């Protein structure tokens, strides 16, 4: 395995008396898809929020791209290249595809020495096309509001936006939720494509078939602790479920 892009060492996060994340350590290498599994309340979301800057861990270290990082806000994590795609996608439904891809980072034309600036919609459209082409995503029209797009298409826009802005690590929270079966396949295909281009993906999901379809490695959390780490080929769904409900626990086996 090559140098890990992300390393977590002994990460803990407590809320009052509750330890939501308990001394979790793990590495992710470039071009790897890692599925993060766990029952509700297992600590997946808290762990992810520590990585993406929403929460600050109480203990432990986060190394990203060879540097020790301490993100105090999500914007900082994004600036470093950690892009999180939430279920609600954070897209403006009333704007078209390029406007969403460039939201907050619009390309502009300057007039009168920069005194007057206008949006360079033509350039943003062209760049959007390049970005989508790189992922082999084809939309018949990019210039209609994305509310007329389907769930999978919007997912593709969110992914394309992250890739365009040079995401080095993509965290996806339940990306196939609320999608029809053909659309789920397209999103999984996109995740594989990201991996092939070297962008690692952390996939949070409850959907077992998705895990086996795209993940290289699987991590299972239970009550805040990382209870196992398996290569996809070495495990099966029923075994994973046993880890998720706490019937199996590798850390305990080692300890006792």
């Amino acid at each position, binding site marked *: 395995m090559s140098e890990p892009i992300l390393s977590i060492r002994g990460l803990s996060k407590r809320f009052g008396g509750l330890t939501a994340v308990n001394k979790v350590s793990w590495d992710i290498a470039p071009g790897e898809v890692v599925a993060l599994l766990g029952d509700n309340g297992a600590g997946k979301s808290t762990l992810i929020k520590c990585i993406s800057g929403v929460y600050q861990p109480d203990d432990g270290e986060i190394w990203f791209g060879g540097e020790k990082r301490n993100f105090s806000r999500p914007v900082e994590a994004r600036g470093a290249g950690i892009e999180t795609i939430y279920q609600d996608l954070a897209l403006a439904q009333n704007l078209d595809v390029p406007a969403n891809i460039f939201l907050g980072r619009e390309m502009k034309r300057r007039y009168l020495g920069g005194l007057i600036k206008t949006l360079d919609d033509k350039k943003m459209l062209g760049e959007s096309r390049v970005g989508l082409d790189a992922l082999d995503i084809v939309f018949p029209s990019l210039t209609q509001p994305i509310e007329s797009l*389907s769930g999978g298409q919007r997912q593709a826009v969110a992914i394309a936006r992250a890739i365009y802005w040079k995401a080095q690590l993509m965290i996806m929270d339940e990306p196939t939720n609320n999608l029809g079966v053909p659309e789920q396949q397209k999103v999984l295909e996109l995740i594989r494509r990201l991996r092939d281009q070297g962008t690692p993906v952390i996939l949070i999901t409850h959907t077992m078939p998705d895990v086996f379809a795209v993940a290289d490695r699987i991590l299972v959390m239970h009550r805040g602790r990382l209870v196992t780490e398996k290569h996809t080929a070495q495990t099966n769904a029923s075994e994973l479920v046993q880890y998720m409900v706490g019937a199996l626990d590798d850390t305990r086996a080692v300890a006792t």
Partner: protein
Amino acid sequence: MATTTTLTPAGAGLSSLQRLLLLVSRLWAWLFLLALILFFVITVPIFSGINFFTVRNSQNVLVAIVPVLLLGLGQTFVIISAGIDLSVGWVMSLASVLSALALRNSFNAGVPLPLAVLLGFFAAVGGAGVVGLVNGLIIAKLKVPAFIVTLGSSFIVRGLALLWSENTTVVGLPDGVRAYGNESLFYSIRGDHGGFYVFSPPTLTGDMVRQMDRILSWPVVAAMVVVVICMFVLHRQQFGRYTFAIGGNMQAALRAGIPVDRHIIKLYMLSAITAGIGGFLSMLQFTGGSASIGDPLLLSSIAAVIIGGVSLFGGAGTVIGTVIGALIIAVLTTGLVMLNVQAFWQFIVVGAVVIVAVLIDQSRDLLVGRYKGGAE
């Protein structure tokens, strides 16, 4: 990987009838305005024996829409951002009073007229801008709903306007002010010795005075300049893009790193400032500052914005739509008066048009079959 992910748009596959209906529903305000003008051009001569389609009448309509339009322009931005500004009516009144006071007092203190008018402009825009700043700060930073903040501030501004005008019209403005508010860019004189003049009219006597039409009076020209600036800012600049994004999905705007709070403050300042310009222009037009001019126009201006296709839920709308909306109301009002219909019918008709406008907008959503749940 050789496979290509082709994604067809969810709205595809509309029949040609649906496409036609969609086009009509998008352009209905234009078509309605055209139909309205056509209706009055035919009916007014028949029932009243006068001509509707005259230069003078067109100019009357334009002069009439200036204050409503200026209230509506800033409101267009605010409503697109999913907000509302109920204070603009009284802000316009306040601006009218402040600018009249500033103009009169500075002129009386020996400031030359053009400079005094400029000072009046700054008083109007400055006073309005302060109200907008306070509105925006409370809405953006303290997260109080815009409806409540601007309702409250409208009462405060109303009190201030009445206090400072001492509940009467601020009069005693220099004579020259009249020209600023009533002279025009072009003049056309009908009749044998008539002609077309730019900037300054010839000296006229007798019947000739009645045959002169003022075309594009200065307040109309000023309003047109504000319209063009607003179109540019809303549809061509980042400011407008942010406004649409905030109205469409505020969370998305925040996550994209847009300075949402600061933008909201700017929006309420913009809204107050266009209302302030409206107050200043009406002060010039009536050569006096009055606390009672603005508020009756508030609801008309919101009606114009809605007829023009701005969604009260935010995220959609155009500046030109608001212009068309204001024109529809003005043409309707003028036409009904010329038909000798009792004035109160105006309200009934305008109200019906507002409701129909919203119905047409909603039916458009049904027509396209928008996806709300995200599932195919």
